[in-house]
């Protein structure tokens, strides 16, 4: 099972940081992502992009988790060589993470 089945996401850039909001579809889904989608896993997920650090914030009032992933934009959108220089697809990429049902 993929994270995509229990949540949606949106991401954006701040300098060399990608900031990802992850939104569970229900309370049960929120409990699941809170348990399984750790900062450590998210950092490992984005290590191919050079992630140096990832922070996680729990936002139960919005059934959401927030991830702040450092070092993944080649120094920032305006110096990046990537097709997605603004980190807009990082949310979608996170949704590929496998979960235990």
């Amino acid at each position, binding site marked *: 099972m993929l994270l995509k089945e229990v949540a*949606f*996401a*949106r991401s*954006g*850039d*701040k*300098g*060399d*940081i990608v*900031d990802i*909001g992850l*939104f569970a579809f229900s309370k049960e889904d929120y409990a699941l992502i809170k348990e399984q989608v750790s900062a450590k896993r998210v950092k490992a*997920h984005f290590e*191919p*992009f050079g992630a140096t650090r990832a*922070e996680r*914030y729990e*936002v139960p*009032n*919005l*059934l*959401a988790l*927030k991830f*702040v992933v*450092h070092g993944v934009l080649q*120094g*920032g*959108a*305006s*110096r990046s*060589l*990537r*097709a*997605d220089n603004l980190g*807009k*697809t990082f*949310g*979608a*990429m996170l949704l*590929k993470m496998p979960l235990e049902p």
Partner: protein
Amino acid sequence: MGSKTVRIGAGLGFYGDSFLPALDVIQNGRIEYLCCEHLAELTLAILKKDQLKNPELGFARDLIPMLKLLWPEAQKRGVRIVSNAGGLNPKAAAMAAKRLAEELGLRVKIALIEGDDLLGSLAEFFPLKHLQTQEPLPEDIKDRLVFANAYLGAAPIAQALKEGADLVLTGRVADCSLFLAPCLHELGWGLDDLERLAQGTLAGHLLECSAQVTGGNHGGDWEGIEGLENIGYPIAEVGDGSVLITKTPASGGRVSFDTVREQLLYEMHDPSSYLTPDLILDITQVRLKEVQKNSVLVTGAKGRPRPDSYKAVMGYQDGFMGQAILGYSWPEALKKAKKASEILTYKIKTLGLPIEEVHTSFLGFNSFFEELADTEAAKELNEVYLRLAVRTQSLKAAQALSRLAVPLALQGPPTASGFIGFERTRELIGLWPTSVDRGAVDRHVCIKSLGGDEGAS
């Protein structure tokens, strides 16, 4: 909401956003203010290039066509406009706006706010430390800076509104402060009234990306959202303890729990401590309630006193990007594109071009996901495009890439087609965020006015 409220509409959400939804908000949204956000982090780098070519530029040039469309309607309805389109040159933006007002026969008072631009007085703020890493500013970056701007707050904008401005033009201002300013002015909030200020900052944060809260770029049920081709921009009705987010009835898009919570967390980092120049916003107690179709009531935003410093972002020249994009068809599309990439890389090497980094990806296969792309999907691709991007300090080397790529039409693997994007050499700008002493910046901040009953003052 029993107490007094103010209705604010969102204009643009970035340099290049469309004007028509803003016109709809003015005509049909019963708004009193329209706030327009033109400056993403990298926009100042674009404006700097304009200004180097022509000292009368350096502001977001879409301001003038935008005002041309919106101003007559806004003036008729008493809607005042706040915009950060001043960019690196608010004075030139205000002069251009004044010329437009004369052309349109409008009698308007224009205010401009300066003082965010630190490049000329940067030495006053040394030593600077990187906002995240705390490292000192490297000497070689110092010599290549093209802009350095502090994110100012809402207070000077509110002051300009108090002095009667119909249009307030700023340079770099925190996005949400553009929206908080009308709340300060209309609702008479004090700068230390954190509970109320939090509502205005929250409203600003929700509106600053225009259609991103009304169903645009929505990661949830995007297919179920009707009328994306006619999407409405958001409207906030801000009161003492709450914010109502809505849109005009005839416009497309959606305002719902999902679209609002998605924008609420957008680019915010720590939800309990969103740093703005006006206060530190805490949204961890926020409640969202769909009170009617396309109207969400937001309550529970909290505020703590603002930091003693301003965030500032500096940009420095960091070479050039050259890129080549060309496509290959089935069968074995990816194999062909990879071969083309090898040929190009070989040519770059043998010619000794001063290239620092080559970034290869395949559009339609992995240009976004790179190593996370599903390789199974590559087996029977109908077509795929090679995108080869290079980083170099030499503009000539960046441009040379295109000349190397074109001969592949006849010299490389079969079916090379769809030659696009060869000339898109781009100047690269590195970003260096920092924080600067608030008092020292404030000494440079000033409000000037043009037009109306006064001349320039």
